C-alpha cells in the first residue's frame, strides 16, 4: 500500500515539485497541499518544503506559521504523524514552536548552495528510522539562514533526549554543535536544513537523499512502529477554507 505525502505550498515556496518527484522516486506518492487549506485529508505524512514562503520577509517562516494549514499540521504532529520541514520548512517549524531553537543567518553572512556531508546521529526519528547511526550521506544544502541556534539548556535537552538527527561533517553555516537536523521529543517532527530531494538521482551526483525519504515513507506506512509514539497519525478534520492574507484582486 502506497503512502501519501502532503507537500505544503505557501506563496513563495519553490521546492514542492522537487519533493513530489523525489518522494515518487523513493516509492511513495505525494501531492501538494495549499497553505490556505484547513484539512490534510488522505495524507499519511506532511513535508514543509524549501523555498521562500512569503518572501522570507521579516524572518523566514514568520508569516507562514500563521497560515490556516498550520493548525492541521500541528494537529497531525501532536497526534504522532510524521511532519518533516526541509530548509524553509524547518524554519517554519521553529517559528511555529513545533521544534525548538531558531535559524539565524549563516556565520559567513552569505547564501550557501553546496553539497554537504552529513552524519546520521540517531535512528529514533521518522526521517532516519532504520538508517544506521553513523552513516554518512551526501546531501546538498541551500540556505542563507541555516545557522541553528538555541540556548545551552535546549541543546542539553536535544542531546540527552537523542533528538539531534543529522550533523554536518564540515559545518557550512556556524550551526551550534554542527546540527543539520533535529526532531521533537517523540521523533515524529523533524526539521533539517539539507535538501534530501536534491540527492535523488544519479544524474544529480547523489542518491543519498532517497535513504531519508524512504525512511520517512516507511515510518508513515507503519505508524504503529513509528519511532517513539504509539499513536497513529490522525488526519485532522478542520473545516472551511479561505485564503490567508489579503486577496488584492479587484476589477475596476
Amino acid at each position, binding site marked *: 500500500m502506497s503512502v501519501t505525502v502532503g507537500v505544503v505550498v505557501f506563496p513563495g515556496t519553490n521546492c514542492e515539485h522537487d519533493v513530489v518527484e523525489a518522494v515518487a522516486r523513493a516509492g511513495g506518492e505525494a501531492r501538494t497541499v495549499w497553505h490556505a487549506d484547513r484539512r490534510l485529508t488522505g495524507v499519511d505524512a506532511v513535508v514543509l518544503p524549501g523555498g521562500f514562503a512569503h518572501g522570507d520577509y521579516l524572518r523566514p517562516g514568520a508569516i507562514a506559521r500563521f497560515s490556516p494549514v498550520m493548525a492541521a499540521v500541528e494537529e497531525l504532529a501532536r497526534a504522532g504523524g510524521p511532519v518533516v520541514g526541509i530548509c524553509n520548512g524547518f524554519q517554519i517549524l521553529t*517559528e511555529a514552536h513545533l521544534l*525548538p*531553537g*531558531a535559524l539565524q*543567518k549563516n*556565520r559567513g553572512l552569505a547564501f550557501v548552495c553546496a553539497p554537504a556531508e552529513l552524519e546520521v546521529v540517531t535512528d529514533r526519528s521518522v526521517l532516519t528510522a532504520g538508517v544506521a547511526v553513523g552513516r554518512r550521506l551526501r546531501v546538498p544544502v541551500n540556505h542563507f539562514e541555516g545557522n541553528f*541556534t*538555541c*540556548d545551552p539548556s535546549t541543546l542539553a535537552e536535544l542531546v540527552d533526549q537523542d533528538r539531534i538527527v543529522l550533523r554536518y561533517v564540515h559545518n557550512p553555516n*556556524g550551526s551550534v554543535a554542527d546540527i543539520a537536523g533535529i526532531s521533537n521529543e517523540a521523533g515524529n517532527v523533524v526539521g533539517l536544513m539539507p535538501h534530501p530531494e536534491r540527492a535523488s538521482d544519479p544524474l544529480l551526483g547523489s542518491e543519498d537523499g532517497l535513504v531519508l525519504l524512504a525512511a520517512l515513507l516507511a515510518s508513515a506506512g507503519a505508524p504503529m512502529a513509528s519511532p517513539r509514539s504509539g499513536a497513529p497519525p490522525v488526519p485532522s478534520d478542520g473545516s472551511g477554507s479561505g485564503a490567508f492574507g489579503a486577496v488584492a484582486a479587484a476589477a475596476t
Partner: protein
Amino acid sequence: MSRFAALVEVRLRPGIADPAGTTIERSLAALGFADVSGVRTGKAIRLEVEADDAAAARSRVEELCRRFLTNPVIEDALVSLEEQAR
C-alpha cells in the same frame, strides 16, 4: 481614537552572536573609523497604530512584537511611540 507612530527596534538578545555587526566592526579600522566600536545590528520597523491613548497604543505594539515582529528565542524589541497630528 488617535493615530500613533511607533518605531520598533528589533535587537538580537544579549549573548546571541551578531556576525553582521562583527563584520562591520572589523572593516571599520581600514576605513579610518578606528574610533567606532561595539557595533550591533538589528531591524528598525516603523508603523502606525490606531488606539484610544498612548498606553493602549503601546500595549498593542508590544503585543505585535511578541506575537510577530520578534522571535523571542533570539530577539527582543524596544518600542518608542509618538502621537500623530490628524
